[in-house]
């Protein structure tokens, strides 16, 4: 929670302040999870999209095991990436439309902490299900057990990074006309490193190499976006409301 200290203008963070930051973070996560529970169809859209895309490829390509094994990691990652982007539209747009975003900006808590909470809730409802489903869908591509294991770890590191990077794009395009297309254009180039290292990790394992390097880079991407993305999104949201 020290991260939030960067944005706050108040001098050194005391234990009480950290507790209130943690409380604000938890409050946002709980709020967004409750909202997601009330709108289950929205949440399912992402997962259904992921499952359909991944399942259609083997049908279209045919039962050639070697081909499937080669394209498997890439298809899974591309589908996860597109699914993550699909979920972005909902991140701030609804709160912006009904005025709750304005109230969030006006709370005494740093906006970056609230953004982090929103992204965490988004990941729990749309990212985590993908991570859980991925090994099951990977079976369609005849991926070996160790590749599936690496896939899960890579997705677990990569999908939160996708959410964080996407949050910046969603915040920047807030209030714009046709935000969907704009978000894709903004965010896709930034998603490419995650895609390369994520699919690369699984490929490496399948070629009998160590995936450690790829996974460390994914972890690094996650850490960097964890620090930078909430601050950047918060700044973008303030501009959107001006």
């Amino acid at each position, binding site marked *: 929670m020290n991260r939030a200290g960067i944005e*706050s203008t108040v001098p050194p963070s005391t234990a009480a302040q950290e507790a209130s930051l943690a*409380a*604000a973070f938890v409050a946002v996560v709980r709020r967004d999870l*409750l909202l997601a529970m009330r709108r289950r169809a929205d949440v399912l859209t992402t997962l259904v999209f992921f499952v359909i895309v991944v399942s259609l490829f083997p049908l279209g390509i045919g039962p050639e095991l070697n081909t499937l094994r080669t394209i498997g990691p890439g298809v899974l990652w591309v589908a996860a990436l597109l699914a993550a982007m699909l979920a972005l539209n909902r991140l701030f747009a609804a709160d912006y439309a009904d*005025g709750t975003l304005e109230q*969030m900006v006006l*709370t005494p*808590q740093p906006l970056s902490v609230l953004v982090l909470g929103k992204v965490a809730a988004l990941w729990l409802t749309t990212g985590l299900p993908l991570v859980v489903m991925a090994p099951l869908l990977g079976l369609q591509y005849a991926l070996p057990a160790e590749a599936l294991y690496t896939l899960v770890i890579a997705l677990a590191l990569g999908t939160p990074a996708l959410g964080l990077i996407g949050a910046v794009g969603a915040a920047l395009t807030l209030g714009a006309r046709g935000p969907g297309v704009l978000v894709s254009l903004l965010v896709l180039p930034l998603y490419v490193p995650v895609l390369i290292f994520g699919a690369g990790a699984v490929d490496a394992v399948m070629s009998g190499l160590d995936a450690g390097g790829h996974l460390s880079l994914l972890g690094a991407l996650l850490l960097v976006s964890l620090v930078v993305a909430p601050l950047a999104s918060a700044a973008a949201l303030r501009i959107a409301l001006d």
Partner: protein
Amino acid sequence: MLQAHRLECIRGERLLFRDLDFALNPGELLRVEGPNGSGKTSLLRMLCGLLSPASGTLQWQGADIRQLGETYRAALTYVGHQNALKADLSGVENLQLGEALAGVTITREAAREALTRLGLAIAADLPTRLLSQGQCRRVALARLMFRARCPLWVLDEPFVALDTAVVPEIAALLSAHVRTGGMVVYTTHQDVPIEAGERRSLRLGGVQ
């Protein structure tokens, strides 16, 4: 104390007001008047720090509100022209979650009591998407009952869509806040009598 010095507001290419000066002391009620499009909402959003003035400064207890940041936001309550309600959540849940975000925990009973006071006893547990506009406005205003700790209330058209039975209740809330040393800035097109020691008004729309 809230002090505005030579505020200027430009929206798009249009100058809405300039050289606006005023000061608001504890216990004062300020009504912002003016025709539609004269910049009332812009001024209120400026007071909240949501909008940056094209020029001029806004000071709270002698310090610029931008520099104060969280300290100022902790002293402020804003009820905007949007109700800031989640349509899928009930009135009680909206109140509870709204206050939780502001860092205060309130019980279901307290939330229900506040809604009952504004005549929403039956609607308290319905999703707010089923409520009428006036009922939604009441839920939004019920928030004020938990904001006595914030000295400055900024209210954009608080009485709009309310029926005549609730208006005096809201007016009483405002006058109680002012009586206990709070400050209220509000806009309205209705003439609602609010009892307050120091009543002031600010008229916008001078610039053409």
